């Protein structure tokens, strides 16, 4: 097990290298000279200023050299300064990432809180009205764009009913209750799409398990329906669900780009969008590095969880 963990951890490094290099290459493939973009793509362009910018940010060097220079600094913990705001990327990311992680975690929990019970009920009452209702809701939720749902919730809960703030962010440390109130709408908007996917997975996995012989045996020996489902079926059905829930983290990060912009949450998604438009390479690279690391680590944790959930799985080979 330990050897397996170590090996998996070592595998994270080439994945990260590949991801950062691809993003680096893609950013340079987007039309628009970064130095010209930096100076405002226009009238105030001035040959002398352009030269200074190119030198300062190594833009005068070949692409692979630029990447290696960035990598060498990043490895020592220095992600450079934003080309747009001149702020240190590391400092900025530290602030922004904690916000996105808080939002993401909350959205993920809301998604799970809706999806798991709905999936179980759906499977147990297969083909009857609770199943139909849950399935229809899930199809609807997958089809809803998060930003539209967000706006509708802002209008209903923020303006018409006045129950929750329409936008903004309060740090958890400053005001825990206020922070939670600000997080509810964006987290629901973000979590609901992923809840639909998880719910469908929960349903089909549980159905498969419920059809197995040992479940029939359990019922035959007189165990009631719900103790059978919860005590015997659920744990075996959870493996594929955990996988999907792990993958949903990636989707939640992707969705946070839109939701953070809509709700004015100073997170990483919003930072990255702005940086892409401004061709702010150091910031884009920094965001990608953090998000990619987070997704890889979560996938890694998911794999380890398998072993915890299913004692038959051992990673010794």
């Amino acid at each position, binding site marked *: 097990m330990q050897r397996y963990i170590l090996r998996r951890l070592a595998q994270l490094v080439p994945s990260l290298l590949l991801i950062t290099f691809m993003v680096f290459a893609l950013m340079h493939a987007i039309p628009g000279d970064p130095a010209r973009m930096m100076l405002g793509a226009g009238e105030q362009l001035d040959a002398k200023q352009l030269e200074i910018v190119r030198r300062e940010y190594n833009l005068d060097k070949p692409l692979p050299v630029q990447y290696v220079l960035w990598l060498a600094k990043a490895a020592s913990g220095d992600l450079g300064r934003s080309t747009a705001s001149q702020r240190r990327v590391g400092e900025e990311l530290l602030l922004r990432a904690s916000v996105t992680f808080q939002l993401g975690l909350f959205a993920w929990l809301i998604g799970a809180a809706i999806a798991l019970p709905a999936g179980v009920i759906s499977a147990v009452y297969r083909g009857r009205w609770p199943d139909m209702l849950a399935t229809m809701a899930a199809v609807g939720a997958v089809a809803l764009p998060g930003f539209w749902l967000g*706006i509708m919730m802002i209008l209903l809960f923020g303006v018409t009913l006045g129950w929750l703030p329409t936008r903004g962010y309060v740090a958890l440390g400053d005001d825990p209750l206020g922070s939670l109130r600000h997080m509810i709408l964006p987290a629901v908007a973000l979590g609901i799409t992923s809840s639909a996917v998880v719910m469908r997975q929960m349903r089909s996995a549980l159905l498969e398990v419920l059809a197995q012989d040992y479940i029939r045996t359990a019922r035959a020996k007189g165990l009631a329906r719900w103790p059978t489902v919860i005590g015997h079926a659920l744990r075996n059905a959870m493996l594929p669900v955990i996988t999907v829930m792990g993958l949903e983290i990636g989707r939640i990060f992707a969705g946070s780009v839109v939701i953070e912009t809509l709700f004015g949450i100073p997170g990483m998604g919003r930072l990255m969008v702005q940086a892409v438009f401004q061709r702010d390479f150091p910031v884009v690279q920094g965001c990608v590095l953090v998000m990619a690391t987070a997704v890889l680590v979560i996938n890694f944790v998911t794999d380890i969880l398998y072993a915890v959930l299913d004692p038959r799985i051992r990673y010794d080979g």
Partner: protein
Amino acid sequence: MALRDGVRRRTLLKASLLGAGSTVLLARHGRAQAEKPQYGGKLRVAYQLAPGALDPVVGRSGGDAYYWRQFVDQLVDADPALNPRASTSLAESWDVSDPKKVELKLRKGVLFHDGTPFNAEAVKFNVERLLDPATKATPRAAFTAVDSVTAVDEHLVRFNLKRPWGSVLSTLADRGGAMNSPTAVKAMGADYIFKPVSTGPFKVAEYVSGSHVRFVRNEKYWGRDAAGNPLPYLDEIVVNTVSDPTVQVAALKAGEMDLIYVPYREVGNFENNPTYNMRKFDGGGIALTLQYNTMKAPLDDMNLRLAVAHAINPEAINKAVYFGRAIIAKGGMWPTGSWAYDPTVARPTYNVAKAREYLKLGGKPNGFELDAMLWPSELNTPTAEIIRAQLGAIGIKLNLKVYEVTVATEKFNYGQETPIFMTSWSRYPEPDWNASLIYRSDGYYNAGKRKDDRLDALIDAGAATADIAKRKAVYRQVDEIVLGEAHMVPMLYGVTYAAAPKHVMGIDEVFGWDAKMYLHRMWLKKS
């Protein structure tokens, strides 16, 4: 300074004030003055764009002004029509009569927020800082007429000029005329960008990246209102970044914001509304303009350029896309409300018969294929569809090339990829800014770099004097050429709308000459 970048252009769309609008504003202004302002309170403002920088000199985005205007004073301030206004300026008076130099007499007893005295040496430091290419100052190009700066005495500063600088007073009312504390600039280095220190009515108290900027009252501010009361009235201002206009409106209605810009589609909801005041600024930008590359086929032929301009009906676009809230352009690129605006110049207007005639004159009576550059937005995308249909009616087949705004700007002006660009423009009431950027042979927005000796000579003549009557005559001639021969044909002027609950006072004075928000004189009425 024109269309500084994409971000700026987007702001433009929402922005705008003058002409008939300014009369209304003045009348309301008189009424508001009757009430005695109350001190205290916090004003919460929503604005679409986060600041790219707080230091006015290095910021690139037009949206930055919504932040830095609150904590700076201009060396030479201007009223909404861009007439210099000494009473709110750091210079008490100026002498621009000598084409070789400009002299400014500075206000006495003004301190930067850090206690550094504001004087001639500080002005010299600021101008030299922005002229140094290593500063990467945004307004550097606008200051290239300056050869050197002399601090004649504590309160008299002289700019020694390489060539005449007719737009000096307008230029000092923009970024380059905002003064930074020399002590703070030297002490902070790169960190200064988000911790600026100036002389204005508010000080920057807090900057939270991606969220908001908080300003607090400058207790030692020199400014007084007309009744002699010390400014400012408010204790605090928070400018929040709220990207989505729908959310801005929702936040205002939920009572979480005190002042927002109103998108065109929402204006009807705030008109004659018992709960909110709304004010507008006509000509806050050029909402839609046809920018031509006059050297690129097929639009290197003037007749075909005119055919395109005559075939487009801005009235239909205004109705369908702008809810009838924009203004049909009657002049050129200096919009309504600026002294250079001249609606009497002959210009191409919607006329299908004329459009067909010009097609024949251009040798393409059955039309032609045309590539057009476009950047997508809630307003631009439907507009382009309407234009495509209108041009299709005379046989011109429009192929749209769509890129995100900064890229489209670069690809049109620098890459010369298409003969026409459908875009919008910031409010640049100083005609020399647009003239030297769009019409001069070396102007960045002269995409084909067409060399026109007539225009170059006129632009030099306009820049050579500070006499407004003389300059007005010059820019009329520029308009006659560029509109008559279709170099750049504005179709719609924008109108900027701002709304606030009724207890928010001072909204009559909220728009500056650039149609951006000035919160210096706002106050909150306690019920």
